[in-house]
């Protein structure tokens, strides 16, 4: 980009030439000391000119000077006639007194005689203002420079620049005028062309929707366009002239460092993003493309570039980045597919949930997750819902990469374009396998509680019935002779009543209404006592390992602890069919550790009882039911199914926890946590 246009240089150049020419012309006139001048080719005037010239030299009487003057006159004469500038000397009335040959060419005269008849002031094409100005100046005897135009003989217009000088006598009366006339037609044309071109350029520069600027090496702005001003909240580009580019940056130091590094690397073109300060103090982000212009000695001359306001884009990018971070950190799995179910995007939580990395699963169909546990109709219903533009939400069983079946809660939403057409589907998934387990546990717990309440209610009435039966039986037993058959029969009734009594007591145990008082007991000695009792019933083929630590005290009932140990050990014995290893451990711990590895820290200390066997294990289908009262896997007559229900009831009555792990063919481990005192 040129800052000093060529036409201005041209103008300056020609003005200097004109001034020099004028000075020379005056010198020439002085030397000649004559009024009439003419071309060398003119027969009339060249003789008289020479005569006058030489007579003047003779009058001086100095030979040396004469020779010098002669040489000087000749060269000036040549210059006068061959100068591209036309010269005229005119009298007060405008009649031509002297002229050079260039004037003929400029004004389009073919014959010298033609110009003699010309009156300078009678130029009918003279610009009106010039004519008025000339008249005034003539009266004031002042010089005048102006641009004008003439009509050539051939009818064409010639544009001129005229240097009008007034010569006066000692009384300051006008003697004559000298005018040098320069043909500026071509220059005018070039100027106009340049002006048009520059205007076009200016229009383009100011209309482009980017800010354009140029600075010198110090950072001082020497040019900027309207959009540059607009971006920075100013009205006119001129407001930046002389101001430093760095002053408009939020972090000028950073900019300076970047520039210095680019300059030292001689990198001429580069892009960057900066925060800039607007006129009202607001901060905007601009994208800058810079060009560094170096001179031949690699010194920085200019930095020119464009700036574009990218604040909205940057804000949108920042928002997008925030969303991406959120999506990447969210615990819900997110998957985006096209309308054919082809996976386009998954977040890290998806990988965690399904074990498929994005690279593995992209461009795969979402049906890769199908578990085979739903009917075709189930999937059809989902597809018809979402393709109709509606959300679908619900539980679905899917399959992980490793084949593991899991349950998830999923919401699928269609993504529509501006025309309302569905272009993608986004699914948000949450693995609810653990949640479902917890839910099942809660349900199980609620079920047991309900059974307990029911059993408690039944037991009350049942106890009253038993009470009546027992009293009357006892009355009869007292009244009837012990040796009689009736007495024997009554004894059987009485025994049956006692069994019923025990049963209600057990029912009340798991329903936490045993009626037994709880008191401070030393847990390890009670457990040890129970183990010793049960051990005597074990076959020799059953090995027992025990690690019973002194764990202090609990608020409990020795009979309950006996029931717990006996029930768990009996079950273990039966699961191992009398052959295997039974391990019993009792220790004091400060947290509850669940089988899934989750630890729950509480303020309490806990007594942990672990009973482990190497038996047949508990089948998956019955795992959820083992604590239910009257649920048993044993044959009829071998158990009522109240053992584990009773253990569960006691543990819950104590405010403790009970759970187990079991593997078919490997064995079962029961963990009991009772609150320590």
């Amino acid at each position, binding site marked *: 980009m040129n800052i000093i246009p060529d036409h201005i240089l041209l103008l300056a150049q020609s003005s200097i030439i004109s001034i020099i020419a004028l000075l020379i012309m005056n010198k020439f006139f002085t030397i000649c000391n004559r009024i009439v001048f003419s071309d060398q080719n003119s027969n009339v005037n060249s003789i008289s000119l020479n005569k006058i010239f030489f007579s003047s030299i003779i009058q001086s009487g100095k030979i040396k000077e004469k020779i010098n003057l002669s040489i000087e006159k000749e060269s000036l004469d040549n210059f006068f006639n061959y100068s591209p500038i036309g010269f005229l000397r005119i009298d007060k009335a405008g009649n031509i007194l002297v002229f050079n040959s260039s004037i003929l060419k400029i004004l389009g005269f073919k014959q010298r005689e033609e110009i003699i008849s010309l009156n300078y002031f009678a130029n009918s094409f003279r610009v009106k203002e010039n004519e008025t100005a000339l008249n005034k100046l003539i009266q004031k005897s002042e010089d005048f420079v102006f641009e004008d135009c003439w009509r050539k003989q051939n009818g064409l217009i010639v544009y001129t620049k005229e240097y009008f000088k007034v010569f006066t006598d000692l009384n300051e009366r006008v003697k004559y005028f000298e005018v040098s006339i320069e043909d500026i037609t071509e220059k005018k044309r070039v100027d106009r062309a340049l002006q048009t071109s520059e205007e076009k350029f200016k229009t383009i520069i100011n209309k482009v929707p980017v800010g354009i600027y140029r600075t010198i090496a110090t950072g001082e702005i020497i040019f900027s366009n309207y959009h540059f001003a607009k971006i920075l909240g100013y009205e006119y580009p001129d407001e930046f002239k002389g101001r430093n580019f760095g002053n408009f940056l939020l972090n000028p130091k950073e900019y300076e460092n970047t520039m210095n590094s680019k300059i030292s690397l001689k990198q001429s073109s580069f892009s960057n993003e900066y925060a800039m300060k607007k006129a009202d103090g607001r901060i905007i982000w601009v994208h800058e493309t810079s060009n560094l212009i170096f001179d031949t000695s690699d010194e920085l001359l200019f930095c020119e570039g464009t700036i574009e306001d990218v604040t909205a884009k940057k804000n949108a990018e920042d928002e997008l980045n925030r969303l991406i971070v959120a999506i990447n950190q969210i615990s819900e799995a997110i998957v985006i597919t096209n309308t054919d179910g082809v996976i386009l995007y998954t977040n890290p939580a998806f990988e965690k949930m399904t074990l498929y990395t994005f690279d593995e699963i992209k461009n795969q169909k979402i049906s890769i997750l199908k578990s085979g546990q739903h009917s075709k109709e189930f999937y059809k219903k989902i597809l018809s819902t979402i393709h109709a533009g509606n959300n679908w939400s619900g539980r679905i069983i899917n399959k992980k990469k490793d084949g593991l079946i899991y349950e998830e809660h999923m919401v699928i939403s269609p993504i529509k374009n501006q025309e309302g057409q569905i272009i993608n589907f986004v699914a948000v998934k949450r693995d609810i396998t653990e949640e479902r387990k917890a839910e099942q546990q809660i349900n199980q717990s609620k079920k047991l509680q309900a059974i307990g309440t029911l059993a408690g209610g039944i037991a009350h009435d049942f*106890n009253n019935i038993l*009470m009546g039966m027992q009293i009357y039986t006892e009355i009869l037993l007292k009244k009837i002779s012990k040796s009689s058959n009736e007495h024997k029969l009554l004894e059987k009734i009485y025994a049956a009543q006692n069994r019923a009594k025990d049963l209600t007591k057990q029912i009340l145990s798991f329903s936490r209404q045993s009626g037994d*008082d709880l008191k401070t007991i030393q847990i390890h000695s009670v457990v040890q006592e129970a183990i010793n009792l049960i051990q005597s019933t074990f076959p020799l083929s059953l090995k027992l390992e025990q690690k019973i630590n002194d764990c202090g005290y609990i608020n409990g009932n020795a009979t309950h602890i006996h029931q717990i140990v006996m029930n768990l050990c009996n079950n273990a014995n039966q699961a191992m069919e009398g052959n295997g290893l039974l391990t019993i451990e009792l220790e004091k711990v400060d947290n509850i550790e669940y089988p899934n590895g989750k630890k729950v820290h509480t303020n309490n200390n806990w007594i942990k009882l672990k009973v482990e066997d190497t038996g047949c294990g508990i089948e998956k289908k019955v795992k959820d039911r083992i604590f239910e009262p009257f649920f048993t896997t044993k044959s009829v007559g071998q158990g009522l199914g109240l053992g584990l229900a009773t253990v569960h009831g006691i543990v819950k009555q104590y405010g403790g926890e009970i759970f187990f792990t079991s593997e078919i063919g490997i064995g079962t481990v029961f963990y009991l946590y009772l609150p320590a005192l």
Partner: protein
Amino acid sequence: MEEMYDILVVDDEPMIRDGLKVALEMEGHRTLTASDGNEALKIVDEKKPHLIITDIIMPESDGIEVICTVKENNPDIKILAISGGGRISASDHLKIAKQLGAAGVLTKPFSTEELISEINKLFE
């Protein structure tokens, strides 16, 4: 021969009420019966028995009311509370009864032996 006492048996369940009456009379005690708290308190005022054997959960006026009133008006009358449980356990009922002034407690179902032994303990 053990000493004989005037005993009031209070229970809403006729089978228990009547059964206990027979059993106690077989042991030589004089026995009165009432089917709820209100009836019992009237008898107490009139007959002033030595001992009241009362169920806790009864419709209308319950055993707790009997215990409280008797302890207030006739503190010398001994009370044996009996319960088979309900929405809360029998032991909880009986704990409350004991706190309110029942001299002894028995959880249903109990044997006549247990009952006689408990009565004897109360009058030792």
